[in-house]
């Protein structure tokens, strides 16, 4: 049966609004036990809305069935391989989800006194301590709610540090392989991005770096291992050069999974970095959030961290051990409305405790092993632009397939037909037709072997039946969608008729 014919059987799920019928309700409140109010009388006629919001009307089973049907249209980690480069789609342990649902965490109000929130404060304090131990940083703030927020926080700390020393400086250096959020974050922190090219091994061109640094260099932002999956082996020189002009060295921790127990960024001279708890520390990605992007710094930058800081008073001089310290005159201020994504922290904390020191190292080792195994098995079938052993991920190019008219995007879409998620495509920008593959340590050899055989099949199809690859996917709930139309005829909110 052809793919299109198979798909005919799938039924498009209507929107929740189309499923609505007047008069239905999915939730009931207890009867009101105080006198009712009349909104017009209480709020005044000019404050009250004339028409109720046009919300759908459904019963609970209808709502549950609708969202369950939607759920079934998703690919997800529990279902199959998800080799998205730089996203670290590792398994999300179930016990983490369970403990994050304890009412002692979920129902704790952030304005509860420190006396009444010692458990949460202790957890945050210790998670920060563990992240410091893993990274070699001295102090960690858990407040940034996502990676990009961590980057902004880091860059504002850089700015506060230099300003304190008399001159905020004007430039931050980023490699051309950097994720787009790096230049975006440093720009919002008032800096100008200076792009530095990669050398033929995919690493920062150290001679070029030497030429471009000067007294206006506030910092360099480095992803290590970088987005090509290679370790910046001349990192000590890079750090020395930037420190030599008084600049700071920031590590984008997106790829920290490769380093746990192997290299501590703080030990080798990084001044600050951010973590992605939703990548390295197994908290689920949630279909795009919530994440958590803590920032670690060495002692000389600690005064600038966002407030409040979770502090510990072992002597309990005020009767409590953990408290929120707002007395931080040099702090950059708050970057989140409260303390950050607390429940994500609970999951990362559970993960670290479950693995322990040996387990963390073992996770990193197996992430590297899995990536190298895939790289080795696939390099005969796809172009491998950088041939060293990789770290936790590697980048292939579909340039050979392109000779048959098959692009990286087509390979990605064809993978979906085999129940495998696509790699990250067209990134990093410095590799044409890039396919960026990160297996993580959660995959078994059997799962990797399956992926390898599918990739080889697609390489063969690209050569002999390229139209199949170009027409993919055919077994998914929908085919390739018209993105031009989506952009031109903007429909972002359902309207009747």
């Amino acid at each position, binding site marked *: 049966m052809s793919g299109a014919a198979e798909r005919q059987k799938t039924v498009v799920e209507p929107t929740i609004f189309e499923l609505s019928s007047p008069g239905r309700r999915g939730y009931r409140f207890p009867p009101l036990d105080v006198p009712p109010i009349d909104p017009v009388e209480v709020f005044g006629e000019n404050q009250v809305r004339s028409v109720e919001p046009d919300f759908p009307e459904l019963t609970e089973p209808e709502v549950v069935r609708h969202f369950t049907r939607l759920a079934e249209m998703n690919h997800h980690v529990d279902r199959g391989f998800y080799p998205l480069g730089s996203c670290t789609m590792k398994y999300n342990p179930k016990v983490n989800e369970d403990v994050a649902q304890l009412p002692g965490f979920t129902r704790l109000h952030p304005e509860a006194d420190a006396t009444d929130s010692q458990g949460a404060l202790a957890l945050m304090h210790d998670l920060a301590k563990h992240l410091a131990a893993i990274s070699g940083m001295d102090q960690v703030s858990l407040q940034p709610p996502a990676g990009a927020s961590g980057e902004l926080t880091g860059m504002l700390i850089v700015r506060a540090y230099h300003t304190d020393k008399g001159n905020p400086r004007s430039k931050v250096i980023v490699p051309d392989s950097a994720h787009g959020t790096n230049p975006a974050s440093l720009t919002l922190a008032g800096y100008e991005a200076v792009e530095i090219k990669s050398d033929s091994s995919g690493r920062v061109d150290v001679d070029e770096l030497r030429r471009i640094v000067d007294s206006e260099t506030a910092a360099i932002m480095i992803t290590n291992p970088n987005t090509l999956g290679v370790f910046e082996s001349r990192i000590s020189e890079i750090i020395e050069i930037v420190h030599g002009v008084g600049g700071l060295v920031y590590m984008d921790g997106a790829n920290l999974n490769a380093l746990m127990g192997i290299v501590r960024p703080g030990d080798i001279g990084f001044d600050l970095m951010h973590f992605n708890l939703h990548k390295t520390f197994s908290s689920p990605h949630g279909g795009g959030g919530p994440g958590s992007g803590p920032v670690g710094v060495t002692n000389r930058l600690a005064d600038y961290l966002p407030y409040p800081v979770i502090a510990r008073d072992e002597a309990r001089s005020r009767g409590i051990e953990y408290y929120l310290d707002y007395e931080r005159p040099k702090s950059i201020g708050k970057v989140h409305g409260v303390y950050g994504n607390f429940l994500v922290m609970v999951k990362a904390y559970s993960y670290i405790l479950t693995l322990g020191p040996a387990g963390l190292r073992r996770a990193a080792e197996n992430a590297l092993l899995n990536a190298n195994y895939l790289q080795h098995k696939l390099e005969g079938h796809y172009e491998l632009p950088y041939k060293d052993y990789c770290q936790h991920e590697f980048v292939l190019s579909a340039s050979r397939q392109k000779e048959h008219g098959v692009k990286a995007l087509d390979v990605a879409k064809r993978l979906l037909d085999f129940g495998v998620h696509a790699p990250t495509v067209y990134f990093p920008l410095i590799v044409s037709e890039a396919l960026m593959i990160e297996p993580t340590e959660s995959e078994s050899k059997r799962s990797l072997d399956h992926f390898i055989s599918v990739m080889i099949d697609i390489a063969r199809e690209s050569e002999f039946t390229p139209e199949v690859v170009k027409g993919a996917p055919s077994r998914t709930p929908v085919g390739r969608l018209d*993105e*031009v139309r989506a*952009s031109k005829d903007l429909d972002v909110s359902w309207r009747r008729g």
Partner: protein
Amino acid sequence: MSKRDLRFTKSHEWLKMKGNDALIGLTDYAQGELGDIVFVELPAAGTHVAAGDVLTTVESVKSVSEIYAPVAGDVVDANAALEDSPDLVNSDPYGEGWIVKLKVDDASAVDGLMTADEYEEHTKG
């Protein structure tokens, strides 16, 4: 329109003089590389730009590209038709798909731009 009347830049703009005014657009080669154009930001008339300044941006589904001023001048007009039909840049890049009209400061600066043949050579390289 004959491409012989046009001058070109390395950053893939074309320019056509009409008196002291110059029409500026994106080359056929560049629109092909970008794919479907879904949005063109139109600059406000009256803005003065130096050669090499960003005049405006055009967007395809997944990329934003800048249009640089080939020569210095004042923006006198922008192609309002692109507001509703940005795809004119794809379908008629040297005609209906023009983007900005510039009152050129110094017409002799145009001589420094590439000819059609030179541009063709440039895109091959």
